[in-house]
């Protein structure tokens, strides 16, 4: 099945881990931009299969946290271990390799490449890992089919609806079976109905075992798909709560 995530221990790297090792392990992470402290000693652990929703006011450091975990930014101090790899001191090239194998990212504004049709946008992520063109396209086709975009494969992002674009974005993020799916306000640019569809998709993925870290402003959506809630304020975790996922009418 195309949507099945990688084994939590990861197939590519042979780090010594117990099966229950955390996918994300943040330890007193600080991040400063000039005078601004965006993250102020954040410690956080995410276990395989969890769906963590990060909430908090604008400017509280949520995106910074995600960037830190994705290896797009480096902490000023503290350590970030993802899928058993300490990425705190990794070089740029190693970080890129780390990202393409372990991380899938979904953005608020989709960030698809305008010049490539949906299928190629998705396949590209596989091509970066060195998957042959034919195989990459086959997997991309499968993913798009499963996300209900079978007939939009050859459409360019400009002609897709917002929800469709975001589903292409999710497909792209899933291309390399990431250990961790990061989504920064994936519904932020969508109307509420479309947003719910995307959240349902994420929920489905999590149910199939995909570890998920989600930033959202929408309490309703958060409680709907997350297994744990993390509240942020001024760069600090102010509250953590395990959630009882109420899954009313999801029929699958």
């Amino acid at each position, binding site marked *: 099945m195309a949507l099945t995530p990688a084994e939590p221990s990861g197939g590519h790297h042979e780090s010594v881990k117990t099966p229950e090792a955390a996918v994300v392990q943040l330890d007193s992470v600080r991040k400063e931009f000039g005078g601004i402290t965006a993250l102020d000693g954040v410690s956080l652990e995410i276990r395989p299969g969890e769906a963590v929703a990060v909430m908090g006011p604008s400017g509280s450091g949520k*995106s*910074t946290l995600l*960037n830190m975990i*994705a290896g*797009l*930014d480096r902490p000023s101090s503290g350590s970030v271990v993802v899928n058993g790899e300490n990425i705190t001191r990794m070089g*740029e*090239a190693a970080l*890129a*390799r780390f*990202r*393409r*194998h372990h*991380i899938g*990212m979904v*953005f608020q*504004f989709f*960030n*698809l*490449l*305008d*010049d*490539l*049709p949906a299928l*190629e946008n998705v*396949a*590209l*992520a596989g*091509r*970066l*890992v*060195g998957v*042959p*063109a*034919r195989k990459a*396209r086959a997997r991309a086709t499968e993913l798009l089919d499963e996300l209900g975009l079978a007939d939009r494969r050859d459409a*360019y992002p*400009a002609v897709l609806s917002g929800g469709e674009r975001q589903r292409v974005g999710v497909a*792209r*993020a899933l291309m*390399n079976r990431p250990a961790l799916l990061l989504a920064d306000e994936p519904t932020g640019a969508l109307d509420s109905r479309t947003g719910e569809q995307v959240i349902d998709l994420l929920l489905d993925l999590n149910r199939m075992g995909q570890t998920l870290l989600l930033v959202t402003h929408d309490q309703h959506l958060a409680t709907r798909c997350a297994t744990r809630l993390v509240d942020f304020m001024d760069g600090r975790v102010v509250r953590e709560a395990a959630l009882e996922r109420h899954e009313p009418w999801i029929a699958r």
Partner: protein
Amino acid sequence: MDRPLSAVWAAAQGGVRRRKLQTVGIAVVVALSTATLVFGLGLLAASNSMFDDAFEEARGAHATVFFDSTKTTTGEVAATAQAAGVTAAAGPFQTAALTEALVSGEMPIRGGDLVVAGRAGSGGPMDRLTVTSGRWVRAPGEIVLRGSAFGPVRLGATLTSPGHPPLTIVGFATSITDGANGWVTPGQIGALRPTGLQMLYRFARAADSPQVRQSLSAATAGLPVLSYDSYLTAEQEFEREFNELIPFITVFGVFAMALSVFIIGNVVSGAVIAGFRHIGVMKALGFTPAQVSAVYIVMSVVPALLGCAAGLAAGHLLATGVAESMAAGFELPSVGGPSLLLDAVGGGGVIALVVLAALVPALRAGRLPAARAISAGTVSGRGRGRRVQRWLARTGLPAPVALGLSLPVGRPARTVLTFAGLCVGVTAVTMGFGLYRSVMENATADPEGHTSVSVRVDPAADGRARLSEQQVFALLRAQPGTAHVMSYDNQPVTIPGLPSGFQIETFTGDYGPFLGDNLVRGRWFTRPGELVPSEAFLRLHHLDVGDTVSLQLNGDQTTVRIVGSFAHQDPGRLMLDAASVSGPPRPIERRPISVIVTPGTDPAEYADRLNAAAASDGVVAGVTVPETGHVADEMSMFLLFLLIITTTAAFGVLNSVVLSARERSRDLGVLKAIGMSPRQVILMMVTSMAALGVLGAVIGVPLGVLTHHGVAVLAGELLGSGTPAAWIYVYSWPLLAVPAGAGLLIAVLGAWLPAGWAAATHTAGVLRSE
């Protein structure tokens, strides 16, 4: 009226500040092309003015006239100074012809006669000589020679001529006026059996040769004139040297200007594209379309003005330097330099071009509907290249390569401009390599260029010959390592029906291999009776291969058939087999002998062996080093031009990559977020330009070969020397490999730096925006 202007100014300042690299780039590119242009114009101007300036300063003579002193008196000749139309005169000076003059018993002076004039001082109201080394003659037994020291011809050396007292060289002097080649005191000249009287004139009317001739015959009516020299000959010779450079400089100048236009067009349209929203805001604030256009023009004209000023200064200095060194080559005092007026015209032209290059994108900015400009983030070339991009994505190429290749498709206009710049770069490199080959061919085309060892035979102590020519040749041929031997001679000759001034250059021995690849028409002579004159001779006298010419020498007349012509601008040179002309050849001691050694023989060892073996016979051998010193000047100039053009082309690439990376910063961020490594980003950006570089070579190399062809032929036409095929068809496959690689190299070098910047941009920051 004042406020909108200052608003335009303020907006343009903002644009300049946001685009520092491009702004500096405009300045640099404009500086380089202005420098090239001003340098070219400056040299052209110098070629026109320098001779005239030097001529005026030295009070040169419009005509130098030789009278037969056996048929006229000093008084009669002196009286011509008062003739109508003569504005100044000097002389008469007695002149003597020293035949077979030798320096230190070995070095023949100018192959024939040395005309010496008796003259009291170097200054005077006319023909002021410049003593470049040593001093002026003071006493009998001394001589000052025209020109400069060369080999054994140096200060303190003794000049001998059969039947005349020996003269010590005490100085070297330059003169703007043709005439005597040496000067002695008026007291000394009497002892040299003077046969002529030399008179120098300046005329009221002397603008062209008919005027000189008319003025001259009016002044010298009735007197026995032997011959005369006109200042126009020297002037033409001087200008010819510059003419040789004109095609090269023009082509390089055109290249540099074209590059600036491409780059400035790219910078300004890039600014317009990147500033789409900015333009919308300006319009919303109430800027008129004209004002918006003005903002973009000002943005490029301000740095262009700065670059132009720098380029003017550099080009002016360079032109002055080169003009001075060329003047020195002609033994002219250097006067003045390139004209400031021309500098201003050149600079103005460049700025006008900059405005033109900026105009198209600036007008586009002005016409942009405000609403669209505000709403559209960037303009993306929708549709056009999509099919290519999709096809590339589906090929089996590695993702960064496929993406890189599809980048140029997205911005066709920019791609075309960048590509054009690369083509110009490759064309220039191709042409430069060809010119290098042509100039080297040219420098080694004469028999000396084919000689490995030159030999002379000194006479015995009593002045008599020790060996006959046959004996010398036999001796040399018996040497191990000898491949070919010939000897060379030259002497003046007249051709009935044509004005004077011909020299025959005669060859003995197996001279075939010594004759160069510089044939313009026909073939080389292979036996007596065949003549190969300079191409300039054929053109001047409207002759061609197959025609016959009568040569008059030592009272005998010989008819020879023209079988070819060699490239040279001197219409007085005639080459043929020595046996073509009657009369005994000059003794072998007077003629240089040339040897080509067999392959694998070291010329230096050969010469040493020969010197050791045949010293008792008076044989002296030395290695011939081809004289390519003057070539070095031209080469360094080509190299400088090439450097300027390739750097500019590479900057065009750099600029193009910067613009693309800036416009696609979001895409780059996404690619990095999904796992593209910095190296892959660099690979992608470099690939995008490398593809253009390779294509640029495909177009630029043939274009360069054609341009070289045109320039070589044009140079030959301007000189009147013709261009031999060997100087045109200089390219071989290995030689073409370098310029072919140049396109790729320029593209990769130009793209590398900004690709690195793109790879290093902070991904998180880029993705935050919007």
